């Protein structure tokens, strides 16, 4: 992306409660990556409890912090899980 853009972000569990919503649009700078998204969410206290423990899924696959985002991506914040 050579321009600033927004992605739709799905929120679950603790993050969803902190944000007060299950889904939000997040603005990112040109060339924005997963790491930018996490920082932005942290600044907005959505993942205030510990950025490093949060994973991000892009199109339902876990993505690294340097993964470049696209406005069409399905992005989800994955706080520590507790299935079973």
């Amino acid at each position, binding site marked *: 992306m050579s321009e600033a853009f927004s992605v739709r972000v799905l929120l679950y569990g603790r993050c969803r409660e902190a944000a007060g919503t299950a889904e939000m649009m997040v603005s990112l700078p040109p060339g924005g990556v997963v790491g930018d998204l996490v920082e932005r969410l942290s600044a907005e206290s959505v993942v205030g409890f510990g950025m490093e423990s949060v994973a991000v899924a892009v199109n339902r696959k876990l993505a690294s912090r340097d993964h470049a985002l696209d406005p069409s991506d399905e992005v989800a914040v994955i706080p520590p899980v507790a*299935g079973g």
Partner: protein
Amino acid sequence: MQADGLDGSEEGPRTIASVTEEPLTALDLVSLLGTDSDGAVVAFEGRVRDHNRGRRVVRLHYEAYPEMADEVLRDIAREAQAQYPVTQVGIRHRVGTLDVADVSLVVAVAAAHRDPAFDAARYVIEQLKARLPVWKKEEYADGSSEWVESQPVEGE
């Protein structure tokens, strides 16, 4: 989430993997799995306990990212089938509000012999505890509640 997540023919490799809002029991999977060459079926039920970390639990709320959860469950089931000599694997995880003694998870594995069936069942449980995008909020007897977050997911 609505889909059964079922594939494979009756006698061949079969995978059943999904999150569901419906009540679960081991029977749902055990009765579906197994071929004539299978001598062993191992099943696991995870149930809601009335206590956790010293607190009295009255209810649980499970929340999933269902589309990704179904994919992760299918991945885990197929990994188990690739890594162990087992024929069929089924996994169902419940979401929504569960009472004490309700079944949150069912895993079943069919195999010719029992050792790989046990090993594969444990593999599935350990993997889904580490990777499945499911979150759990405990409600306690004193009216408070808390997210239980045992396992940060390892990113790439």
